[in-house]
Every structure is written in C-alpha cells, then in structure tokens.
C-alpha cells in the first residue's frame, strides 16, 4: 500500500510548500546521519524563475567537495502504486571537465514509500560512497553501495517493485 502525499502540489500553494518542507526535512536527516564528512549546500538550482512552481526541481543540493549534486523532481500522480525513477547526470558534456558536477536525479510522486527509497539512494550519495543503481531480472530496483571509507563492502539497500 502506497500513500501519496501532497498530491495537489501543482494546484495548491500550501501543498507545494509542504512538499518543499518535506524534502528539506528528509534531506536534513540524511545529511545529519551521514556524519558530516562533506559540505552540502542547498538549494543548488531553482526552477528557472521565482514564479515557476512546478516541482522541477522541488529540491536540490550540491557538494563542492565531492563535485556531486542532488536534484529531486516531484511528479503528479500518474497511476496507482510506487512511481520512482532515479538516474545519474553530468552537468557538462565532458564528464572530465573540471566544472562538471555529477548529479543524482530522483523523479517521483511523493509518497511514504518513494521517500523511503529516496532516503536509501541519498544516504550513500551524500557520504561520498560509490553507488550502482540497476534493475534485476524481475525489474526490481537495486541499489549497491561501495563504502568509500570501508573498502569494497557491498550492501543491497532497497528493492522496489
């Protein structure tokens, strides 16, 4: 059972602000639990103009130390169940460009389950771990983590239908 949150965020200003606060709270918890190895600044990027409230992105952060970014896109509900996508993106055409930031992008309908999966993906990303996101043969989302400070230990963090 998936419970969507603030579904009317594109029509209702209050829902939009509550969504923003929800992601900010989740982020604060994730960064706090990561132990503060690296500096993260938020917000990193806006929606393009102050009057644009489209949830794209609803939250963003950057770590100049890690040359990593986070961008969360909140989507309108489309069909019942979990709606959660994640991908990596480079800000520059050449990933070796010194200006390049590697982004972790999450696009989801905000729900209790999507937030839990977002947390699972964000936790290793903010502490500098290398992570691998893939789908297994059954189509389940797999998140493997290689702890930067502990060698090559791999953990399976989450699984989504």
């Amino acid at each position, binding site marked *: 059972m998936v419970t969507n949150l603030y579904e009317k965020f594109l029509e209702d200003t209050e829902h939009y602000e509550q969504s923003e606060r929800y992601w900010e709270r989740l982020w604060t918890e994730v960064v706090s639990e990561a132990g503060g190895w690296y500096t993260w600044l938020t917000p990193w*990027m806006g929606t*393009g103009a102050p009057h644009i409230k489209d949830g794209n992105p609803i939250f963003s952060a950057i770590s100049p130390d890690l040359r990593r970014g986070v*961008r969360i896109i909140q989507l309108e509900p*489309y069909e019942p169940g979990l709606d959660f*996508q994640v991908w990596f993106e480079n800000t520059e055409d050449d990933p070796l460009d010194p200006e390049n930031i590697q982004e972790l992008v999450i696009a989801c309908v905000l729900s209790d389950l999507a937030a839990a999966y977002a947390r699972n993906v964000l936790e290793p990303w903010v502490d500098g771990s290398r992570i691998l996101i893939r789908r297994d043969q059954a189509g389940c989302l797999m998140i493997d983590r290689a702890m930067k400070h502990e060698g090559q230990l791999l953990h399976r963090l989450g699984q989504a239908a």
Partner: protein
Amino acid sequence: MPKSVEPEHRGRFQAQSDYLEESENWAQQEPLTARDGHRLLTALENRLDDKERRIREDCFRRAHRFIDNAGPGGVGPTTKGFPVRGRHDGSRVDIDVKKGLAFVVRG
C-alpha cells in the same frame, strides 16, 4: 589572434536514456528566444527514430509547455527533467539552461 568571447547565454536540450544521448545546444551573446527554443527542441525531436520519438511524445509536449510558460522575461539557469512516466530506463527529455537567459519573448 582575436580573443574568443565567452557566450553569455548557453544551454542544451537533451533526449536521453540508458542507451541514448542526443542533444541540441545553444551558445550565443543574446538570450535564446522562446521561438528558437521551440525550434531547437523540435530539431532534437526530429533527430530521433520513430520509436524513441513516440516514447517521448509527452516529454516533448511538457518541455514545449515549459518554454511557453516561461513568461516574457524567460528563465535563468536551471535544469528541467521530463521523464517518460512508467518506464525505468532513464528515458527522458531535459532542458538545461546553463548560463544567462532562455525562452525570452521578443515583441
């Protein structure tokens, strides 16, 4: 040799997935107009094969709508992702305004 001038306004449109990466870039001294934004986005759409274009039909529609909704002054630096709903292979269309303004309306 004349010194090259760094463009004041630059960005890119991208169609991406785990197996595809196509883009249309701009880099110029004047802000990109909404009209030219639509033109570049359509050029990107036309470069895809039928299957990839069909998959992203709604993504392109949302991207064009974003350009239309930018307002007369356009938008500043931002990255917009328009993922294909219901797929999990990273299929999407991105708008990336890296520097300056884009999608301004000229009277």
